[in-house]
């Protein structure tokens, strides 16, 4: 292997590094993760910047491809394999990608004390993404004149990262890994399909590059076959997914306390577990006075830990008291209005502050909820609540027959 200094001096990667670093720092300052106290979320936010680092790697690799072609021509009949030459010439680009990845993860580091570490599966996907962009850039640099190769890979690599998130069908964004930008709230984990699809796609691109380097020119078309096959498999994997590449976090991750009520929290919430238990018990008396039963258990709280306060816990209790309704024939506007009124009343009943209620309940609905809460006696409020539940169970339909049908469906679901 030629001296480090020799390889570095000829590479564009050392020049690209400060530019990439500045870009990452500026971008990271403006794009917080979905949940900054959750490693999965912080990792996803950090690695997603690699979509914009990949074009830099591809451009540097295209330049190296051009240089390696000249080196091979100089020797004419090299003994070292094309792959060995590629690795030897491109390692500064690999370091550029890894440095950018490390910087990006560091900038999105969750606060100290957050349990866990960077999500290795997500990091792995994006290392593969960088490797694939680098390898393809290198091959293009070998095949085309440098004045064509560099702009071509810069534009192509950028578009591959930037365009699919804005395009239909949705699987396009998942297959290139950009779907992970909405990952993940505390009660979510990445859908394995959203991780496997880009692995297949970029992995096959790497295999194609290796095949392209090793096969004779007449057989090079064969190198594209794995890309086509795994592209089809990847599309089938992510085809059922919507915009969100997540699935519910396994309850096994949560810890449940035998408290009154039973409270389940995620590991990230452990440091405030005692506070949460106290805050969750506070609404007991209020609910008792209103004639409502406390929910038997509180599922893991999905909101971020940073914003965890008594109001958020009370709002979660209110949310658990909302009925679960199945509306097979759709719903009417009445349903939504009623749902807002009921939610408002529940928030006020469990003691959520004015500011807390106003942030989640529409003004008109809140005015009506507040009128019920402040001007009716507790038994009247309970009757009002039950009549509103009937409306919800009927999915907002006023027609007695339809209402009865929906109510029959929803009776077992009513959570009072």
């Amino acid at each position: 292997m030629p001296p480090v200094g020799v390889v570095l001096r000829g590479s564009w990667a050392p020049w690209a590094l400060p530019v990439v670093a500045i870009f990452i720092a500026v971008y990271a300052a403006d794009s917080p993760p979905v949940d900054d106290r959750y490693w999965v979320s912080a990792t996803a936010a950090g690695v997603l910047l690699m979509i914009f680092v990949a074009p830099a790697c591809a451009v540097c690799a295209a330049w190296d491809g051009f240089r390696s072609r000249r080196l091979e021509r100089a020797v004419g009949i090299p003994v070292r394999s094309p792959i060995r030459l590629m690795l030897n010439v491109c390692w500064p680009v690999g370091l550029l990608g890894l440095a950018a990845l490390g910087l990006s993860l560091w900038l999105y580091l969750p606060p100290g004390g957050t349990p866990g570490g960077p999500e290795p599966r997500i990091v792995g996907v994006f290392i593969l993404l960088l490797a694939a962009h680098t390898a393809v850039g290198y091959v293009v640099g070998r095949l085309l004149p440098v004045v064509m190769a560099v702009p071509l890979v810069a534009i192509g690599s950028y578009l591959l990262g930037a365009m699919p998130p804005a395009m239909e069908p949705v699987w396009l964004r998942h297959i290139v890994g950009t779907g992970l930008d909405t990952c993940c709230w505390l009660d979510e984990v990445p859908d394995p399909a959203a991780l496997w699809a880009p692995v297949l796609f970029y992995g096959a691109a790497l295999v194609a590059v290796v095949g392209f380097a090793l096969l004779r020119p007449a057989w090079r078309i064969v190198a594209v076959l794995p890309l086509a096959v795994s592209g089809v498999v990847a599309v089938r994997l992510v085809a059922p997914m919507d915009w969100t590449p997540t699935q519910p976090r396994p309850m096994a991750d949560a810890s449940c306390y035998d408290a009154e009520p039973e409270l389940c929290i995620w590991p990230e919430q452990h440091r405030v577990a005692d506070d949460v238990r106290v805050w969750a018990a506070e609404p007991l008396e209020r609910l008792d006075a209103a004639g409502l039963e406390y929910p038997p258990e509180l599922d893991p709280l999905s909101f971020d830990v940073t914003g965890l306060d008594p109001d958020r816990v009370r709002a979660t209790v209110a949310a658990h008291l909302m009925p679960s309704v199945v509306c097979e024939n759709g719903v009417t506007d009445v349903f939504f209005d009623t749902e807002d009124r009921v939610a408002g009343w529940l928030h006020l009943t469990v003691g959520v502050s004015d500011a807390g209620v106003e942030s989640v309940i529409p003004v008109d609905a809140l005015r009506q909820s507040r009128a019920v809460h402040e001007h009716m006696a507790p038994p009247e409020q309970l009757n009002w609540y039950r009549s509103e539940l009937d409306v919800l169970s009927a999915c907002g339909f006023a027609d007695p027959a339809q209402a009865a049908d929906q109510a029959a469906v929803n009776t077992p679901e009513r959570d009072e």
Partner: protein
Amino acid sequence: MSLTLDSIVFGYRRKSLVFDGLSLGFDAKATVVLGPNGAGKSTLLGVAVTALRPRAGTVGLDGLDPQGRSGVRQFRRRIAWIPQHVTAVPGLRVREQVAYCGWLKGMTRSAAWDASESALDRVRLTDLASRPSGQLSGGQLRRMAIAQGLVHDADYIVMDEPTAGLDPGQRHVFRELVADLRETAAVVVSTHQTEDLTSMYDDVVVLADGRVRQHGDMASFLAVAPGDTRPEQRVEAAYARLVVRED
């Protein structure tokens, strides 16, 4: 030592065959391949060093068959190929480019770096060793290319038109270099220039239209010239007679 081509059939894609059953052996210390432009000299040498793959026929070096990855590597380690067109590699200095080529020929990093110094010394480029290779003149580039070929101590040094573009002074340096090289390796050079051949080479191959018109030692080549030719014109006369004879 013998570099042999046996029943070579070669053609570029969609073009007619350049060679159709060509057989040839290079076994002298210094052989020159003569022929007009388009005769197939570069193609012949390209096939001989495995830079080009024939459709049929075999190439061998002292019984070594360049088949399979391992065979090709062993074969190529023993041959230095200096192509006609030489280019500088951006970002590399002269000695670095020579050393890099040594590494590409299978040498270790330190061995290639050490060997690059003596290779540059042999082509008298030591004083330019630390200059960016892109700043070399055409003649200096060609000498650097020869140094790239010398760096790994090959048994066979095959050069395609090495004197093209060299001024008389540089050609003089090249003659001395060939004299030096043949002490340690066999040299095969293609050219269409006929000066100073008799003192430099032992064997002559004359190629025209993809066929070997003459292959033998210098004396048999010169014998082709008409008897009344003056000594200093015998090479040119023999060459012209061989190339023009069947045209």
